[in-house]
């Protein structure tokens, strides 16, 4: 802290992107709710009104974060983590069940989704741990500890039956990967996911055939043939066995309705009454938007409530329908810009804590973005997680604002820090 830091020096681009996203969110929540007979903007009983109220609370949080010493968060990383864990436990014990998930703590008129705070707490603790001088996540002992730190809140959230929020934590692998976690942990799950989908789509023997051809080509190219052959044979046997078991499990172990969900997702099946309904309506809304969209408040699918959960998880449909490809691309650009900007600022930081924390924030943002839009576009299973800053929901907005504020403050404080 060689120089005085002023709030006016806070990273302008990031702040602007976040504010624009929040405004887009409010606009579209209004649009999604418009049909329900609500045409007023400032009405605190409406979703827009509530969201604006939460925006006020978030602003307050932002101001508080800017005022207090940022070392408060750094030093209290572990206690905050523990508190969020305790909140998760409390939710499991005393929480209220909403739409099948026991993820809400309701006290008086105040309701909170502790899983949103847990993301923040986990990033803090993980950052603190990775920032410790002698920690090297390429070592088994260290990455095991890191996995446990992430796994604990994840497990509690799974117990709450909120799979969507739990999956989000997996994205923290990105943070670990950046800090030196063996690439194996990032790529093997990815490859397995790809193999999994392929196994369901086509007969696995074809894929095995293709893999053999690829292996032969690689073996031909490499100099250390013995080792390449060994690895190839092992990989191919493993891949084939994996695909066979996926195929077997799919046809023998899964219930028909579970099979249908996966089939719908893979495009092998259309089940409009059941699991396919949301996605089908979502695709109709987005697809009917065309190049330039139907215009603000003119989206018929949006207005007439064809899409369930539109204010929250399926908010992107509104944008797709009312602003078309142009609007959707603008939103994609805004999000990727924000994520890349955080990445850029993090990489620029000499202060390791900020960099790791930044990676934590961008990982969570990225996974929300990817899964949420992926599911509205029918590319990902329907997992109920919100689109950051845009979806209706106070806890989510508050959680993301808190993360962003702390990151911006860290970035501002340690911009000119030299290691």
């Amino acid at each position, binding site marked *: 802290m060689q120089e005085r830091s002023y709030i006016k020096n806070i990273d302008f681009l990031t702040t602007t992107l976040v504010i624009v996203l929040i405004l887009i969110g409010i606009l579209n929540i209004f649009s999604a709710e418009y*049909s329900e007979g609500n045409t007023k903007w400032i009405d605190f009983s409406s979703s827009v009104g509530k969201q604006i109220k939460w925006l006020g609370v978030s602003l307050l949080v932002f101001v508080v974060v800017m005022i207090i010493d940022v070392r408060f968060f750094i030093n209290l990383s572990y206690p905050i983590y523990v508190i969020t864990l305790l909140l998760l436990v409390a939710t499991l014990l005393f929480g209220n069940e909403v739409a099948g998930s026991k993820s809400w703590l309701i006290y008086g008129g105040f309701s909170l989704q502790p899983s949103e705070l847990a993301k923040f707490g986990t990033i803090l603790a993980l950052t603190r741990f990775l920032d410790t001088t002698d920690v090297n996540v390429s070592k088994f002992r260290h990455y095991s500890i890191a996995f446990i730190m992430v796994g604990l809140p994840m497990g509690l959230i799974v117990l709450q039956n909120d799979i969507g929020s739990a999956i989000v934590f997996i994205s923290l692998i*990105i943070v670990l*990967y*950046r*800090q*030196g976690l063996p690439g194996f942990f*990032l790529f093997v799950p990815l490859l397995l996911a790809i193999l999994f989908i392929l196994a369901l789509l086509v007969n696995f023997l074809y894929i095995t055939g293709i893999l053999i051809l690829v292996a032969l080509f690689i073996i031909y190219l490499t100099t250390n043939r013995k080792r390449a052959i060994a690895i190839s044979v092992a990989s191919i046997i493993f891949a084939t066995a994996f695909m066979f078991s996926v195929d077997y499990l799919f046809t023998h172990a899964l219930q028909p309705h579970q099979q249908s969900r996966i089939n719908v997702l893979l495009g092998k099946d259309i089940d409009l009454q059941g699991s396919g309904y949301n996605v089908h*309506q979502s*695709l*109709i*809304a*987005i*697809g*009917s*938007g*065309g*190049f330039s969209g139907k215009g603000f408040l003119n989206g*018929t*699918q949006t*207005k*007439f*409530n*064809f899409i369930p959960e539109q204010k929250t998880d399926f908010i992107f449909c509104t944008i*797709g329908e009312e602003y*078309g*490809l142009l609007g*959707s*691309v603008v939103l*994609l*650009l805004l*999000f*990727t810009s924000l*994520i*890349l900007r955080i*990445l850029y600022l993090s*990489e620029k930081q000499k202060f*390791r804590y900020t960099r790791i924390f930044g*990676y934590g924030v*961008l990982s969570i943002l*990225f996974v929300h*973005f*990817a899964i949420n*839009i*992926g599911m509205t*576009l*029918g*590319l990902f299973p329907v997992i109920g997680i919100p689109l950051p800053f845009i979806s209706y929901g106070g806890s989510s907005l508050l959680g993301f604002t808190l993360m962003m504020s702390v990151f911006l403050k860290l970035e501002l404080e340690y911009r000119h820090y030299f290691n």
Partner: protein
Amino acid sequence: MIIHKSRHKVVVFFIIFVGVVFFLRLFFLQVFAEKYKQFAEKNVLSRKIIKPPRGLIYDRNGKILVSNAPVYDLMVIPAQLNLEDASELCDILQITKEEYEEKLSEIKKFSYRKPSIFINNIPLETYGILQERFYEFKGFFVQPESIRKYPYEIAAHVLGYIGEVNKEEIESSEGYYLQGHNIGKSGLEKVYENELRGVYGEKYVLMDVYNTEQGSYLDGELDRPAVTGTNLLSSLDLELQQYAESLLKGKKGSIVAIEPETGEILAIVSSPSYNPSVLYGRDRSMNYNSLAADPDNPLFNRAITAMYPPGSTFKVAMALIGLKEGVIAPSTAYSCPGGYYIGNLRIACHAHASPLNLKQSLTQSCNAYYCHVFRNVIDLNTFPSIYDGYNNWRNDVIEFGLGQKLGVDLFNEAKGILPKTDRYDKIYGRNRWKSTNILSLAIGQAEISLTPLQLANFSAAIANRGYYITPHLVKSYMDEGRQYGKKYEKHLIQMDTSKYRVVIDAMANVPRIGTAIRYGPYFKAYQICGKTGTAQNPHGEDHSVFISFAPKYNPKIAVAAVIENAGQGAHWAAPICFLVTEYYLSEAKPSEGTRWIEDIIIKGVYHPKVIKRVDEITIVQEENATESETITDENSE
């Protein structure tokens, strides 16, 4: 940690990769795939058919015979229900909670999101109560439907009824009718279906996911308003029709009254009849079935479908044909020794003075005279054979509109029976029959049968002295104040007008001094010309037949009546025709001097065996009829 510095590139790659995948997917969805736009339209666009009000039917004086009345169906959309306690609703609807639950669960099985009929045709009072309280019963609403209303509950056979289209009607309409639409099923409703139905309108509306209307599409650019059906101005005279129906209460038979100059049917009655209103509403099918099963066949329109031997009324035609063919002159006289004798054949006649000239023969209804005329016509020596003679005679009969369809604007009009020569060939063999074999035709018996409509039309043709206009029930169409007539064909009878004089003089004498003298003199003010008939039939008592027109000069009304199994024409059909004529022509209706005759007709029971109150199905039951005094002497002859 510097060694991992380049790893951020992998992360950047992932982020951009996801962004690009999303972009491509969006591009495909929003620019390439047309189907989503169509899906979206299907989702929200709904084409609504707007039913036009059906055309009304008026009587000749502009009084409404058939109108439309709204009925209300209580509809429900189960998805929108949020009623916690249905007991209040049940009270209003006067159903039990169990019935409510049962109905609702049945409807839910059918559709959860689409509107279904909860209770059809709810009473108006219930509708009134509900209307103010619908906000309490979310999910329920009322759908107005239109049914036909008959302010006077008359002329059921003629007006007909409407009902739901059947499969064949939908198929043959080339897309005009849809399931649940109404179509005229009989009577004028059927004949003038194309005029009455109007044109269906269509409206495109945006629907939300609960199938609730959310406004018009493209500001109503594609909407078409419904066009109200054309109103019909019928030729019926409401009051005359009512009166004529009252005269036939408790009797089987029919009355047809025509305005000779125009061919307009003033009244057309078939008894037993029914109240047209019973073919609407909840009990429709039950009522229809009981009407159809009634042995007296109230659904059957006797006036145009039933065929009766014309009896002596046919002598008028015979007289005119004789004059036309020149085989007799007004002065031609034949003696009648109590009948017509040839060989073993005898056609009996009643007692009267003899010999009689043409005029007298009609007035007294002499059978022998017309046997002579018939033989003269058929056996005319200018014809090479009986076939030519018979066919010539037959064509003369047809020219009067007898034994053929007249083309009245109703379905199921009967042709009547006027045998062709091959019929007799079948009975007697080719060239094996002569005029004497078929002599009964001369007095309107045996193989000849005519409908009441043909008799009335024949009477009108005489009244007109040589022509008739196709009898009809619809004078003109009325559209939004615009009235445009229908043209009906004029049929000229190829005969010198002067030849009618003697026949009409004779008919004028029938009520005064002839066979209808029993009641005739009481109506002399109206100069009624008529002819009695007593139609023998193998099924029972003779039918009482009468044709008439009045006044003698410049006639205004021609009436024919056939009363089944009532005996002589003079006793029932004649006074009925007189009363109808009087009712139509007189200012004071009915006049004091003839009220007692009206009493006899209305209250009279002419044949206890066949009396049956067939109006029991009407809503207001009239039970005093069987208690009324019995006139026994009417059948003593």
